[in-house]
């Protein structure tokens, strides 16, 4: 026993921070699954493609300042190169695990992108699609998901489960359409949307925090309530007087000078409506606020260990109340995208489960704003890919591509691809004893 007490002659190397945090050695599951997927890509997409065919990507649109000619890639070679790259990434994951270090999140992300590209090249064999259109469409589909998942991040980081994202989005979409339509002013609609989300969030906070009702129950029931109220008013008023109540119009895209002229990403990222620009701002603000400010530290403390936070004088339930309301504002704003950002009219249950995909994106993004952003973009990409491939014709049924986000989320929570962990006190009410 004395050996442990006497200082060792050879000083230990400073412990690797990650190795210390990782009590158990990381599982081999992730590299194995990535490897299998990589092999699948090599066999199915690489060698499965006929030699001599080309996959053509349009890289700019007619309206762009700088035009790039479409790129025609040899399908087979490109798919093989991308698959090999995917396998190399799987190899790197294996290297990490062999060094008893966890597989970093970016590696899985890059793997997913490379794998999807390989799939895309194979799926449009002998055909042509607009790459810019694909990306722009993906972003459009991802915008409400991003707002919704940010709402989830804000709530759940403080320890309140938010299943009511769907309801907040729907309420935002509804009120934005109605207010913009009645006032004839889209900006008032944009202002009204977060207020609608706030009202739903207020109910969530009231029942979950004040009356300590099970947070999942409140969320589920609030979704039903919002679907009911909006559907009722839609059927009773909006349909009857379409012109006064439900013809808000949509925001037009604003092109940012210079940035909007960058080839490929310019038209995708910087020729968008004001709601999308707001989304960039909100993502950045939430990410910085949660992880770089005193406020964020407090929020996370409340979400991880409310009793400890309470001991040092943080008002647990006040922070939670604030965060639920903030989440409602964000999700409500996202809801505006459905009506005044995109479609131009409200329709019954128009969010169609997007709130639940947003929930999935939040989980997939490991309860971080940036993670949720990329997860939502990935889900938007998968969704848009299936609709585009549905038009050009594809060997994979579109229903399976629509399932992909949900399957990916199940894999993520089941720990098949990395392990996600919620804030420790997420969903547990805090009652001061």
């Amino acid at each position, binding site marked *: 026993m004395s050996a442990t007490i006497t200082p060792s002659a050879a000083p230990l190397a400073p412990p690797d921070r990650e190795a210390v945090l990782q009590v158990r050695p990381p599982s081999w599951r992730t590299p194995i699954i990535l490897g299998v997927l990589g092999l699948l890509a090599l066999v199915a997409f690489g060698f499965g493609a006929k030699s001599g065919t080309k996959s053509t990507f349009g890289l700019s649109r007619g309206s762009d300042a700088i035009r790039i000619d479409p790129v025609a890639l040899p399908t087979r070679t490109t798919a093989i190169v991308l698959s090999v790259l995917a396998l190399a990434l799987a190899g790197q994951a294996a290297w990490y695990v062999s060094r008893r270090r966890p597989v970093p999140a970016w590696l899985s992300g890059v793997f997913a992108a490379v794998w999807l590209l390989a799939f895309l090249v194979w799926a449009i064999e002998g055909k042509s699609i607009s790459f810019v259109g694909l990306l722009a469409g993906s972003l459009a589909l991802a915008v409400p998901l991003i707002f919704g998942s940010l709402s989830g991040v804000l709530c759940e980081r403080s320890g309140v*489960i938010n299943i009511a994202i769907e309801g907040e989005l729907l309420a935002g979409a509804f009120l934005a359409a109605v207010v913009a339509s009645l006032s004839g002013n889209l900006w008032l609609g944009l202002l009204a949307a977060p207020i609608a989300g706030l009202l739903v969030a207020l109910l969530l906070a009231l029942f979950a925090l004040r009356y300590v009702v099970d947070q999942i*129950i409140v969320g589920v*029931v609030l979704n039903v309530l919002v679907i009911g109220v909006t559907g009722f008013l839609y059927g009773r008023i909006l349909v009857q007087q379409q012109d006064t109540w439900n013809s808000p119009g949509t925001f037009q895209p604003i092109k940012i000078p210079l940035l909007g002229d960058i080839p490929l990403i310019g038209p995708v990222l910087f020729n968008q409506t004001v709601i999308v620009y707001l989304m960039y701002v909100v993502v950045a603000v939430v990410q910085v606020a949660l992880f770089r400010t005193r406020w964020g530290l407090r929020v996370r403390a409340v979400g991880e260990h409310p009793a400890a936070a309470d001991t040092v004088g943080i008002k647990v339930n006040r922070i939670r109340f604030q965060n639920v309301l903030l989440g409602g504002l964000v999700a409500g704003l996202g809801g505006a995208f459905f009506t005044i950002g995109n479609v131009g009219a409200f329709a019954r249950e128009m969010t169609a489960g997007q709130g639940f995909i947003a*929930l999935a994106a939040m989980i997939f993004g490991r309860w971080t704003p940036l993670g949720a952003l990329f997860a939502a973009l990935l889900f938007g990409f998968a969704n848009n890919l299936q609709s585009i491939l549905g038009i050009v014709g594809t060997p994979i049924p579109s229903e399976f591509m629509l399932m992909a986000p949900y399957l990916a989320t199940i894999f993520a929570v*089941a720990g098949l691809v990395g392990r996600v962990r919620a804030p420790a006190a997420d969903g*547990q009410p805090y009652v001061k004893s």
Partner: protein
Amino acid sequence: MSAPTVDAPAPPPAPQEPAPPPGGGALRDTIVLTLLSVLLALVVGAVLIAIASPDVQNSAGYFFSRPQDMLGDAWTAIADAYKALVQGALFDWTADSARGALRPLSESLVFAVPLISAGLAVALAFKAGLFNIGAEGQIILGAIGAAYVGFSWSLPWGGHTLVALAAGLLGGAIWGGIPGLLKARTGAHEVITTIMLNYIARYLLAFLLTTSAFHRPGRSDPISPAVDSTAELPRLFGSSFRIHAGLVVVLLAAWGVWWLLERSTIGFRFRAVGANPSAARTAGISVARSTFGVMAIAGSLAGLAGAFQILGTEKSLTGGVSAGIGFDAITVALLGRGSPLGTVLAGLLFGALRAGGVTMQARTGTPIDIVLVVQSLIVLFIAAPPLVRSIFRIRAAGVETMQVSKGWNA
């Protein structure tokens, strides 16, 4: 997988079994609370109906010169809507014949049968501490199973129905078993996995309806062939009433769930795990096996609801077969406080609201969505007894809260 939170507040006792104070005061309290919640929800619904009524909006324009007009219009709008609701749900005194007058009752039961079955699926899981949001997907899988056996196998009368019902049970059990297995093996939270499986089931159904095995030849819309007449659930009271033998089956199922929970060893294990998993584990109960078992049985009950939809009312499989029953089932189970009898009663109430809502929409133009509003408000009010008590100024008998889930990491 979460660290044992020693200092976290102990979750309040399970809502379904409030400590019975002497004299059955809790039961009376529960009944009073439930009735008041229903009343409150109907009042809020009435306000919405009045606000949205075109007549009221019209007379509100000159409210200050003749307020009685607006109030009168509001009263008419509410009375007409709720009258139509009762006529559609219970008894239509304006009908020409006795059959017509009683048909609403049959319709209410038709709506109630799958609601009760799916509600039992949610309620059973509640008792075991699990939150089954996946009834929607389990219904779809049950419907797929029942429909496939119904239209593609040929079996004699009687046996065909039973085999088709069993296929529905199996389909639901698989879809419920997956989240149970995932929870037991990996700790993946059942709320997340069941939500995701709902959507997967929806797209699976959409895909199947495009395949030659399921798509009805000669139709361009996604619909399956109709099930054989040998597989249909027989109607209970002749062809003029749609109520079918599923009513008998679902009542048996409710009794079965009661027996399972209250009289069987397995049910005791389920409840023990639901009340306190750590204590159950210490007592030698396999929490993993119990979790899987509960979810598989719950899934099969929801699958049964899908089978009822196919074999009793719809006859053929379409993309909309689940019709939101899986989500209504959550409110049914919550209103029924997780008990089989309560679930049956709640299912009857919500079935009646559904049937009445259809008539209300047809006769007064009040959208059926008002039913969703009333339904969700009832559950919200019931979930927060202090709120209802403070509205009606009733003294509290004891604080009870609805706390089922224990957070994502539990």
